[in-house]
C-alpha cells in the first residue's frame, strides 16, 4: 500500500497515547510551538505525563494548558521561570511539590535528545561541571577537562511543528521554527508533525530537513 502518513485531524493523531507517556514538545524563541497538537493532547487527556520542552512557562507555548489540567507529573526543561512577577501555574505546582522539575542546560538537552534518537545511551560533556545541575553526576577528565556524564532522552511521543510535509512524512521548516523539532522527531516512538501544508507531492530531496523515516503522522493545520 502506498505510504501516506497524513491524518485527518489532530485528535486522530493522538490515538494510542497513554498515561505515563514521555512527551517531547518542540518550540523555542517564539517559533516552532506545536500548539495545535498540544491542545489535541489535552483533549485526549492522558495523565502522569513527563514533558520534555525547552521552557515550561513560555508565553507563546500552550504547554501550560497540560500543566494546568493536572496531566503532567514531571517537566524536563532549560527554563521554568514565568515572566510575570507572580507565580506561573508551573511555579505554583512546583512550589507545592506537585510537579517535578529537572532543569537542564539547553544544549545538553538538545544533545541528550539527539543521542536518544541516534542510539547513544550516554555521553560526557563539559557543560555544567561544577554547578548545581551536575550534582551527583559522574565526572571524568578528558584532555585535562572535567566532564559530566549525561544520559540520553527518548520519548513515547514527539509533537513537532514544521512548515511543509509530504505524504511520506518528510519535513521542511521555516527559519527558526526548527529548533528542537528535528532532534525530537528522531527520539520518540510516535512522532507527530503539525504543518502548514501536507502535500501529496514529494518534497525535493535537497530541501528535506527531517526524513519521513522518523515521522509517523502528519496533520495539516494551516498557518
Amino acid at each position, binding site marked *: 500500500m502506498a505510504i501516506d502518513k497524513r491524518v485527518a485531524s489532530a485528535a486522530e493523531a493522538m490515538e494510542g497515547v497513554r498515561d505515563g507517556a514521555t512527551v517531547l514538545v518542540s518550540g523555542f*524563541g517564539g517559533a516552532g510551538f506545536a500548539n495545535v497538537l498540544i491542545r489535541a493532547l489535552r483533549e485526549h487527556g492522558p495523565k502522569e505525563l513527563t514533558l520534555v520542552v525547552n521552557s515550561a512557562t513560555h508565553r*507563546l507555548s500552550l504547554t501550560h494548558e497540560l500543566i494546568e489540567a493536572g496531566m503532567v507529573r514531571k517537566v524536563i526543561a532549560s527554563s521554568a*521561570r514565568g515572566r510575570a512577577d507572580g*507565580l506561573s501555574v508551573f511555579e505554583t505546582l512546583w512550589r507545592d511539590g506537585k510537579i517535578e522539575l529537572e532543569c537542564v542546560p539547553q544544549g545538553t538537552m538538545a544533545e541528550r535528545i539527539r543521542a536518544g534518537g541516534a542510539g547513544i545511551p550516554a555521553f560526557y560533556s563539559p557543560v555544567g561541571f*561544577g*554547578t548545581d*545541575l551536575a550534582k551527583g553526576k559522574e565526572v571524568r577528565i578528558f584532555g585535562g577537562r572535567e566532564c559530566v556524564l549525561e544520559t540520553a532522552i527518548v520519548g513515547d511521543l514527539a509533537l513537532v511543528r514544521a*512548515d511543509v510535509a509530504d505524504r511520506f512524512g518528510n519535513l521542511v521548516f521555516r527559519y527558526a521554527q526548527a529548533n528542537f523539532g528535528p532532534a525530537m522527531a528522531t527520539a520518540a516512538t510516535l512522532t507527530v508533525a503539525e504543518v502548514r501544508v501536507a502535500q501529496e507531492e514529494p518534497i525535493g530531496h535537497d530541501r528535506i530537513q527531517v526524513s519521513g523515516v522518523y515521522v509517523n503522522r502528519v496533520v495539516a493545520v494551516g498557518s
Partner: protein
Amino acid sequence: MAALNRNQMAWRAAQDIVDGSVVNLGIGMPVLAADHLPAGRDVFFQSENGVIGVGPAAAPDKADGDLVDAGSRPITLRPGATVVDSVGSFGMIRGGHIDVTILGAFEVAANGDFANWDSRIPNKGPLVGGAMDLAVGAKAVWVIMEHNTRKGAPRLLERCALPLTAVRCVKRVFTDIAVIDVTPGGFVLRELLAGVAIDEFRARTGAPIAIAADLKALVAPALSDATA
C-alpha cells in the same frame, strides 16, 4: 554618581569585538552591543535558537513569527546567514566555534567563575537556558553587569555566593564604572571611569584587584539609556 548607562556599557563591550569574529550575545544588555559595533567590522552574530548571522531587528510590518532570535525578538538575516536546529546550534557553541560570548551576570569571581542563572527569588523557577553551554564552549566569555547591586554590594567577588553558571571561564568584565580583565592572578583593572577614585573603586569591589600599568580612562559617547 558617575556611571555609564546600559547602552554605554554595551557600546564599550562592542568596541572590543574583533573584525571577522563569530559572537553570541546574551538576552538583555549584551544584545544591545550589536547596535554599537564599530563601522567596518564584519561580524556574524549567532543566536542559540539556531540563527547564524542575525541582522538588524525586523521593522514591525516585516516581522515574521518564525524569524526570531533566542529572546523571541523579530529579526532579519544578514547576507551569508543560515539557520540550523538546536543540535547544530549548540554543537557550534560547545565545539568551540564561537569566538566570543557576551553574557549578563549577577556575580563574577576572581578565578573566572560566574553566576547568572539562578537569582534565588523564592519560588520562581530556574532559567538556565543556554548560558552554561555558552560559558563552557565559547573561546572567550565576557560579562556586562553593573559594578554593584542596587543595595551597593559588590558583584566582583573572591568567590561567588549564588549558584554558578560555569567555573573559570570569564575573561573580561564591562561594568558601569570600569573594564576589568580576569587573569590567572585575579582581577586586573584596565579602564576606570573619570570621576571614580581608585579608593572608591576598591571599596566597591569585593576582591583584591591589580591596577594595570597602562590604566586608561573608560570613555563612552553620550547615548540614551536602554530599557531592554
